[in-house]
């Protein structure tokens, strides 16, 4: 009995059934990470306080919108102002930038961690470039790429690139030499070492780097949309500032928080799926 057959008979799931099952497991894990009785005892009073304080006039209602008005505004934006369009646009920019960052940073990080030759030739470059705060790249990017999609994608890419690169590099470089020696004695080629030893040993820090990359990528997304373009959540934020529409600002902020939380949950799920072996520890 080979391994894949064993798997299938174990779980009895394939195709849509499998996808449905995985989605259910994911959403259960994600929702459960936020909703618990302990947290509800904190969240519910906070929400009530948020609703009551502006209504009773303790804080000025013009500056602090109540949750109920935020929900109403959210619905309005959804129906009248094309919130879905802006959201899709933002997500497209974010995922393009993040994807490009990952497919470049991960291999470069692995190569730098694996081989002294690569490390000596490329690491100093990244060490010089990385301390430049990503927002500092905004003016020159606007000059070079103009305002629009390429510039936004590039800025997201810049934000996500270095955390993924350096964490991958560190993880691969710190691979325990015992594992390498034991694979080498059995005759593993360098490519096999990378595929079966280095990457797995670095998995934890790669995922850590990806999480940081997501966070900084979101920051760069908002900054890039604020400075250039007429689409996206960042643009909505700036626009609502112009009209002094605090309800909308809060809606945008809540949406951004939700996106960040959701992406981190996805990373947690990927970690759970890939690093089964860590659970027993």
């Amino acid at each position, binding site marked *: 009995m080979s391994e894949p057959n064993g798997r299938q008979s174990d779980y009895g799931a394939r195709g849509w059934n499998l996808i449905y099952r995985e989605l259910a497991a994911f959403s259960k894990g994600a929702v459960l990470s936020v909703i618990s009785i302990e947290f509800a005892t904190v969240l519910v009073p906070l929400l009530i306080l948020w609703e009551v304080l502006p209504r009773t006039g303790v804080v000025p209602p013009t500056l602090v919108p109540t949750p109920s008005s935020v929900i109403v505004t959210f619905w309005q934006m959804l129906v009248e102002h094309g919130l879905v369009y802006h959201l899709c646009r933002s997500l497209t920019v974010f995922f393009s930038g993040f994807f490009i960052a990952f497919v470049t940073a991960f291999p470069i990080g692995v190569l730098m961690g694996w081989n002294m030759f690569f490390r000596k030739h490329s690491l100093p470059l990244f060490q010089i470039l990385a301390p430049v705060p990503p927002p500092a790249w905004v003016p020159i990017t606007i000059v070079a790429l103009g305002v629009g999609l390429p510039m936004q994608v590039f800025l997201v890419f810049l934000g996500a690139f270095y955390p993924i690169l350096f964490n991958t590099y560190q993880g691969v470089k710190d691979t325990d030499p015992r594992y390498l020696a034991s694979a080498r004695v059995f*005759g593993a080629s*360098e490519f096999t070492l990378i595929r*079966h*030893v280095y990457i797995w040993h670095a998995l934890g820090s790669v995922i850590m780097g990806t999480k940081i990359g997501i966070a900084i990528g979101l920051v760069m997304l908002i900054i890039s949309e604020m400075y250039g373009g007429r689409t996206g959540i960042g643009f909505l934020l700036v626009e609502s500032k112009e009209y002094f529409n605090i309800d909308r600002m809060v809606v945008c902020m809540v949406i951004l928080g939700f996106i960040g939380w959701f992406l981190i949950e996805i990373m947690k799920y990927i970690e759970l799926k890939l690093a089964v072996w860590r659970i027993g520890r």
Partner: protein
Amino acid sequence: MIEARRISKFFSIINDDGTAGGITAVLSVSLRIEDGRFVSLLGPTGCGKSTFLEILAGLQAPSDGEVVIDGQRVLEPLPSTRQEMEDYRRRYRFLSPIANSLFRDRPKHDIAMIFQDYAVFPWMTTLQNVLFCIKLRGVPKADRDLMARKYLHLVGLSGSEHKYPSQLSGGMRQRLALARALSVEPKIILMDEPFAAVDAHTREGLQEDLLQLWERTGKTIVLVTHDVDEAAYLSDEIVVFSPLPGTVRNRIEVDVPRPRRRTHPALRTIRERIQSIYRYDSDQMAECII
């Protein structure tokens, strides 16, 4: 046959006061190990015997001398002059000399090694660990699964094929390392203090298993240990290392017929002989210091 000719290994270190210094870990060790023998390298901890074993395995290059396994040199010694050093650097600037090759899985020698702290891959299940090693030897895919299960059964791990090493006990992890080493069916197995990290009871069980496997398969086994009892009980020949720098202090043939009893009088004599060697050494050293 393993033949080590005048192996020396120097390390450069930086002292506490910031000056550069050197350590001689192994000094001019020559050794010949015939096929099918069970040889122990015995010495106090930190006497360079593990370094010597890694040089045998080709995981470190010796500073001087060479290791020949079945007529084939393992690793070239490190360069000694500046000119040679530059050549060496140029030749190996891309891949280090201990690397096998870039894409092709091919062991340099027909050896397997077991490490002190197991070094089984925690991200693979028991079965995957063994399969990985078999695959590196180029065994056709159809036979791999059967072979892996056979050797897992041999060391008594059948039933834990789908467990991860973190779910196994220390003794079972050591068995897994043993299964991994046996599964590639090497002629030579090198062991670096394999039973140091398990409790005394488990250790005796593992020793019995190891002896049985050795007698059944007839492999050459080189065992590094600091345990006098273990060396005397298991091996055909004991090579006693002196404390740093590691040199061959003495070689003792163990002519006790197998199967042996742990309490055999001849074994006790050998133990006492080795202990008296150590006592003499430490007395001498104490006198030097005074």
